[in-house]
Structures are given as structure tokens and as C-alpha cells.
């Protein structure tokens, strides 16, 4: 980390500064019943200004702090996805946290700081800076998961998440020290200069990389580091669960991609073997465990684990340009998973206890449009055309085959067939039962929330029918 002080490039860090400013303002907003809208609006403004600002960095390759902050196209695309996801989280939180009047300012402030953490993770190639971002993210998330601190499940979830999360961070840090010990650097570009002849350094190096992957595997909830996910999602406020299921995965996968792209130049086998193992086990465990779930959020948690497995196939194809498949899949995943969690948020609001899949009964008869959006999200997650989820999966499979991992792709499609059962069970429950009154009231007002869900569902279909422009965007984002 040999940077000189004059290289402080404020421009390279402007989006994060804006977020932090808003977060600081939010901390001073006094909680009172009328402030619900104010808090949400401030958070919304912060994110909205970010989403306007971030695209300006496209193609400029701005760097700052001696190369510690890198605004390449890849990071810009990932950040845009995260901001879109968090914008949806803000809409959900506004809808969901109606009865919770305490600490709303802190809630939104923590959401914003976690975005800062993720942005830092993505926009750097230095392991220490990445670790810094990861910790900012984790600290915010520990508190957010424990937001319902008076509820037993909430407490259980946050303790579980905190203990395992801290452990994973420690392993990540240990990995960095091995890495540093072997190469004398913390930057990921150390691979290029690394001396492969050194007998002692090579094993150190591999141990370091493995530990780094373990730490990241925890963040993206990939098997075998997934144990916390279903419990944490279920105990956390549903809006936070939605957040957990999407945004940290983007950041984690982005970092794995950055590690991978340097690693494959040097010695691809080790990295790819670990990733193949994680991908295959995630798909198998995630999909088959989801088959047995009756709780909606738990089902979505396991489905999220499986989805990460699919995304990791694209990482196997890093030398063949698999990064574009990763970005494409992530873009669709943001929409479809946030959408599905949106429905869960809607139902949780009406029911104090855990939402079961059977609670969706009669939804199609009473609220055809909401049922339609949920059907689109499920079809997309299952990878059925003409939704974006199908094209994303197709593109991932294409890259998997191109990289010579046909067996992984075959496991992927076998598990996809198994996944049809639980995704379609939601559709079955919504559309088949006629008489039973669902838990949603008969008349719900047409508000921003429903409109957002419908817009997301339509966007998924549009991206499935004309994926061309998003595809080109993803391709140009990884052409370094």
C-alpha cells in the first residue's frame, strides 16, 4: 500500500461521500410517527442521486488513492445493480415498517452505510480495501438483522449471523495475511509478479486464496457456508431479508470475479476446482432443500443458495468471458429475487407469524395482478421463457459448456428440473384454490408498492424478449 497523499481523488469517491452525508443526516432525524415518510424519502434521495451519478463514470476509468479505488465499467455495473436493489429495499421498508416507529432513522442510515461498504468492496483491487468494505457492510447488516430485537427469532437470527459472519471475516483476514506473506503485497495484481518457483510461498498462496474464498463464500451464502441464511432471513425483518438475499451476493460475487480474473492468469486449476465444488454443492443442496420448505421466506432463502450456484458456473468460464454471463444473471436476479421478496413483504405485513407458502391461497382470484407478478418472478427464477431468467440461465450454460464444464451444466439442468417443483408450487397455490380467503384483505389500495412490483415483473419479461442491449452492456463491462 504505497500510495502518496496527494493522490486523494475526491471524484473517484463522490458517490460514497454522498451516501455517507445522507446517512449522517438520517441519524439526526428524530423518530416520531410522522417521520416515516421523511426517513424513506431521504434514503431514496441519497440512492437516487447515486444512480444518476454512477453512470457518469462509465468508460472513463477513473482511479483514486493510488489505484486503491478503481471505477472500471465492471464496478459501475455492479454498483448500479446494488443501488437498484436497495431502492427496492427502501420502497419495501416504507411499506413494511409501518408499526415500527423507533429508530427508523438509524435503520435507513445503516442501509446506506451498507451500500457504501459494498461499493468499496466492488471498486477496489486491494484486499485490505476490500476487507474494509466488507466489514462496513457486515457491521451494518448485523444491526439490521437484529432490528426486531424484541422478538425471539430476530435475536436468534442476528446472533447466528453475527457469530458466523465474524468467523468468516476472521478467516478472510487470515487469508489476506497468508497472501501477503507469500507475495509481499495486498493488491490482487500480485499474481502477475508472483514467483512460482518458491517452494514455501506457493502453498501459502493457495491457503490464502482458499481462505479468502471461504470468507466470500459466507457472504454470498454458498454451500458449504450457507447454514446461516435460512434462519437469518426468517428472523430478520422481511425487507432486510430481501436486502440480504441480493445485495451482499452481488458484492461477494464481484470480488470473487476480481480474484478469479487475476488468478486464472497464473494458475487456474485450484481456483476453478474450488468454485466448481461450491457451484455444484450449492445447486444440489439449495434446490433439494428448498423442495421441503413450507415457509415462503425459507424457500426463497434456499432458492437463493441455488441461484448462487448457477451464477458460479459463469465464474468457471472467466477465461472465456464468463463475467458477462455473471453480470447478466445478476441483473435479472436483482429484479426477480427482489420481486419475490416483495410479495413476501406484502404478506408478512398482514400476518404476524411466519408466512407459509399456503398463505398465498386464493391470491389469483382476489388480486390477479399481484398473483401475475409473483407468477412472473417464479417463472423467471425457474428459468422459463420468455422471462429474463431463462435467457440468463441459457447464457450461463453457454459459457459453462464453452469452458468445458459440461458436467457442471448437466448437474445444473437436473437440479433446475427439481427446482420446478417448488417454484411451481407457489403458482399452484395461487391459482388452484378458489374459495378460501387469502390473508391479504379483499381491497388493498393501489399504491406505489404494487406499481413497483408490476413494473419489475414487466421489466423481467421485456429483458427476456429483448435481452440484446443488456447483454451488450454486460459484455462491454467485462472487456478490460
Amino acid at each position, binding site marked *: 500500500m504505497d500510495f502518496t497523499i496527494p493522490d486523494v481523488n475526491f471524484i473517484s469517491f463522490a458517490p460514497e461521500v454522498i451516501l455517507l452525508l445522507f446517512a449522517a443526516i438520517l441519524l439526526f432525524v428524530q423518530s416520531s410517527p410522522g417521520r416515516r415518510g421523511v426517513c424513506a424519502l431521504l434514503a431514496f434521495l441519497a440512492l437516487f442521486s447515486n444512480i444518476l451519478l454512477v453512470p457518469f463514470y462509465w468508460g472513463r476509468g477513473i482511479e483514486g488513492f493510488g489505484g486503491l479505488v478503481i471505477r472500471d465499467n465492471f464496478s459501475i455495473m455492479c454498483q448500479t445493480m446494488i443501488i437498484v436493489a436497495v431502492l427496492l429495499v427502501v420502497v419495501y421498508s416504507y411499506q413494511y415498517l409501518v408499526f415500527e416507529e423507533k429508530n427508523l432513522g438509524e435503520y435507513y442510515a445503516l442501509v446506506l452505510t451498507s451500500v457504501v461498504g459494498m461499493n468499496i468492496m466492488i471498486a477496489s483491487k486491494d484486499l485490505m480495501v476490500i476487507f474494509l468494505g466488507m466489514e462496513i457492510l457486515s457491521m451494518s447488516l448485523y444491526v439490521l438483522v437484529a432490528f426486531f430485537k424484541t422478538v425471539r427469532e430476530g435475536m436468534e437470527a442476528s446472533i447466528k449471523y453475527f457469530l458466523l459472519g465474524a468467523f468468516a471475516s476472521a478467516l478472510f483476514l487470515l487469508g489476506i495475511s497468508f497472501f501477503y506473506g507469500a507475495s509481499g503485497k495486498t493488491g490482487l495484481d500480485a499474481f502477475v509478479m508472483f514467483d512460482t518457483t518458491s517452494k514455501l510461498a506457493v502453498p501459502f498462496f493457495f491457503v490464502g486464496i482458499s481462505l479468502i474464498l471461504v470468507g466470500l463464500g459466507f457472504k454470498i451464502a454458498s454451500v458449504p457456508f450457507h447454514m446461516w441464511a435460512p434462519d437469518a432471513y426468517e428472523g430478520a425483518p422481511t425487507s432486510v431479508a430481501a436486502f440480504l438475499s441480493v445485495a451482499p451476493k452481488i458484492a461477494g460475487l464481484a470480488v470473487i470475479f476480481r480474484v478469479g480474473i487475476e488468478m486464472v492468469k497464473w494458475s487456474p486449476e485450484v481456483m476453478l476446482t474450488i468454485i466448481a465444488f461450491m457451484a455444484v454443492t450449492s445447486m444440489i443442496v439449495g434446490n433439494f432443500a428448498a423442495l421441503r420448505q413450507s415457509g415462503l421466506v425459507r424457500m426463497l432463502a434456499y432458492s437463493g443458495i441455488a441461484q448462487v450456484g448457477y451464477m458460479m458456473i459463469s465464474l468457471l468460464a472467466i477465461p472465456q468471458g464468463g463475467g458477462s454471463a455473471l453480470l447478466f444473471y445478476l441483473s435479472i436476479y436483482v429484479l426477480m429475487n427482489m420481486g419475490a421478496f416483495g410479495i413476501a413483504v406484502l404478506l408478512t405485513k398482514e400476518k404476524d407469524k411466519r408466512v407459509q407458502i399456503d398463505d398465498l391461497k386464493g391470491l389469483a382470484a382476489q388480486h390477479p395482478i399481484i398473483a401475475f407478478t409473483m407468477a412472473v418472478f417464479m417463472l423467471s427464477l425457474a428459468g422459463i421463457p*420468455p422471462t429474463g431468467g431463462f435467457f440468463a440461465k441459457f447464457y450461463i450454460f453457454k459459457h459453462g459448456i*464453452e469452458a468445458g464444464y459440461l458436467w457442471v451444466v448437466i448437474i445444473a*439442468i437436473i437440479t433446475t428440473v427439481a427446482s420446478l417443483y417448488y417454484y411451481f408450487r407457489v*403458482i*399452484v397455490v395461487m391459482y388452484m384454490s378458489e374459495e378460501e380467503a387469502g390473508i391479504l384483505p379483499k381491497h388493498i389500495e393501489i399504491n406505489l408498492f404494487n406499481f413497483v412490483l408490476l413494473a419489475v415483473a414487466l421489466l423481467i419479461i421485456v429483458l427476456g424478449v429483448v435481452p440484446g442491449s443488456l447483454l451488450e452492456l454486460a*459484455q462491454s463491462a467485462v472487456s478490460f
Partner: protein
Amino acid sequence: MDIQSMPILTIIVFLPFVGSIVVLFNRERVWVQTVSLVTALLSFITTLVPFWIFKNDVSAFQLEESVPWIMSLGISYHLGIDGLSLFLLPLTSFLTVACILISWNHIKIKEQLYFIMFLWLEAGVLGVFVALDVFLFYIFWEVMLIPMFLIILIWGSANRRYAAIKFLIYTMAGSVFMLIAIIVMAFLNQKLGSGFGFDLLDWIKLDIPFNLQAWLFVAFFVAFAIKVPMFPFHTWLPDAHVEAPTAGSVILAGILLKMGIYGMLRFCYPLFPDAVVYFTPTVIALGLVGVIYGAFLAFAQTDLKKLVAYSSISHMGLIVVGIFALNATGIKGGIIQMVNHGLSTGALFILVGALYERKHTRDMDKMGGLATRVPVLATFFLIIVLSSIGLPGMNGFVGEVLLLLGAFKFKWWVGALGATTLILGAVYMLWMYQRVMFEKERSGSDLVINDFCLREKIVMVPIVLLIFFIGLFPAFFLDKMDTSTDKLLSYINKNPAVVAMVGTDKRIK
């Protein structure tokens, strides 16, 4: 306006979809039904247009449309028809009209969704029959699963949940393996041909090594065989048929099963000719098992719908035998029999549905003596049963004779075994007719039941007319498929193994 320059096929495919949007405007029953019917009729008329333009002697695809869709992956929006798909388009739209008519005023729940689903189904199936880009084909192939799934799931009978999920998982399991094969083919096109792409016309030019052909053939073939359905993959069909509403069964038997045969001819034949020859004995053996096994199963049923479902398995088995006999007679028989089977089995399901509405049972043991009480229905039933058995002068005869001729040309004993369908079919069909229409009323109820109403007659009369038309003037259809059949065979005949197997003198042009 010049009709040649219009994007006829695009209009055909998307007209039902546009109609379904119009259906959404109003929830009133009258509006929903009328708009659906008008859309279906318009769509039927547009599917007849290609008959005028179609040139019998052109072997290339006709009415082609090609627009780049996803450039960087070599995917285009490429449509076209030949003598193989020409007849399947009007069959599809015709049966859709029939389905809308027989559902008229009969749908109790989610009526709007019901008609929209039928129109989407129609659009999806028409898309399957005209797509020449394999990626596009796959999209249509998958898209039409969802409406069918929902039709069984929402409007089916008691055990519909099980049947719908079974249908979905069975068909998806086959098609995802096809997806892998499609991606591999695109890479092969990159390696051996004109770059990464999904255009069928490019793929046909490839010369694929045999071991790869064999794997790819299996991946494609299993997807199609599940759809047909062929013998070991048939178990979803009886469940789906029994639980689906009448109109759902009509579409399922009349059109969806044809997609399997269509796929075999459209993809397996030109792309993997060596593998087709290599696997012919296996496929024919499975087809024959299906013919005989399906017939015996049909014989053992007391549920009318199950009987018709198993008879479908038997008939479709014979079509597979015919098209894999590797001669023009068999292929032509297969194509025409697809249309015949769509008409007669579709009509059988309509009649069974009509009986169910009147008797509230499909159990043959609770029927009997209906001929005197519903004479018009009984007459229509008899005509359809005879057509299904293959009585000379009706459509079934033409198809079965051609198929069996093809099979005999291949190997005499294949033809002989296939011919058992004539006897077995007659046995279970006539026996069924006797039990339902003659004998004594077994249910014990002497409720008055109504004969066919005008609406039902309107549905049945065109079907009967078509049955006789195909039976008496088969040349009208067969002439149009000559060139395409020869072209399909030319892919196979490049291969010296065929010559050795079929014998030079017996190679039929």
C-alpha cells in the same frame, strides 16, 4: 397489396396474442367469449392463406422472414414453412376454434384467464411450427407449456394438481436436455460452419462426426419422444388427459403431441442423418411396443378418456414407426396421419366431453343404450370412431395405409406387427362404442338427456367434412408434401449405410 411481401407468418403467430390483449379489456362473459372466438376465426383464416401462396415444387423453405434478434449470439427471428408444417398451422387454429366453441358458457371460474390461455397456447404452438431459428423454436416450445399447465391446473378435475405438475416436470425434463444439445450445436456451428449461431438452415449444412451426432440425437429425440409420447415416456399422458378439461384434452391430443413428431422430422432428420439410421431399429422397436401395448391398455380401460388417451399412444407409435421407416411413403403417411389423428382424436375428446356433460360420468360401465336417446351424438360418434379405426373412404385409412406400406417396405415383419393396430384398434373402439351406445342402460337413472345442440353440431360438422375430404381426396394434401419429403429423405440417403440397410432397389423416391 402484394400478399407475398407481407409478414404472413408473423401475423399468424402473433394474432392470437394480440387478441388475448383485447380480451383483457372487459371482464364480461359475452365480451371475453366473442373476442376470443373472433380472434380464433381470424387466426384460422390467416393460417389458410399460405395454402394459396405455397408452391408445391419448391424444396426450400417458403414465406421466409428473417430479422436479427440477438446479434452477438447469432440468434435471429427466422420463420418459414415447408410441406411439413403447412398443414399443422390450419390444424392448430382449427382445433382452437373448436375448443373455444365447446367451452362456450361452460367455464365457471376465471373465465377471462381461460380464454387468454387458449389463445397463448395457440400462439406458442404456431410459433413452434414456423420457427427456423432453433433458439426461437425452443422459446416457443417452452412458452406453450405454461398455458397448458394452467389449463390442467385450474380447470381440470379432482386430481388435477398431480397431473399438471407431472405434465410440467416430464416435459421440462426432456426439453432442458435439448437446450444443452442446442447450445452444443451452436458451438459446432462455430467450429465447423459459419460461426456461433442458431439458424437451422446453417446447421443443416454441417457435417457432424458420428459419435457427436449420436449424443445430440439422443438429447433431441428424448425431448420429442416425451412429447409424442413414445413407449417408456408415456406415463404422463393418461393423467394429463383424464384431469384436463375437455378443450384441454382436445388441444393436448390434437396438437401438442404432433409437436414431438414435427420435431423429429424437422431436427433429427436433417441434422443427425447418420444417427437416425443408427437408431432406427431401436426407435422402431419402441414404436411397435407403443402400438401394441397402447392398444392393450386402451382395451383394459373403463374410463372413456383413458381409453382415448391410450389409443393415442398406440396411434402415435405407428406414426413414429412410419417416419423412421426411412422412405417417402412412411414419412408422407406420418405427416398426413398427424392431421388425421388431430382431427379424429380431438373429435373423440369433444364427444367424450359431451357425454360427460350429459351423464356426469366417463365410466363405460355406467352408460349404455344411448344411441336411441341421443341419436345425433351417436351418429357423429360412430363416424369419428370409424375414422379413428381407419375405415376406407375416411381420413384414417389414408394415413394408416401409407404408414403400414412404409413399414412393410422397411421390413415385412415391422409392417405386420404395425398392422395389428388395425385389428386391435377396431376391437377396443367398436367394443367401446357398443358398450356406450348400445346394450342396456346400466346407470339406472332415466333422466332425460339432451341431444347435441346447435353449437355442438357447428363444431362437429366441419370435422366430419374434413374427415371425408381427406379420405376421398388425399392427393390434395400428399402433392403438397412431395418435395419436402424428398428433401428430408435426401439428407438420409447421402449415407451409404441406408443403401445397405434398405437395399438399393427398394429405395423409394
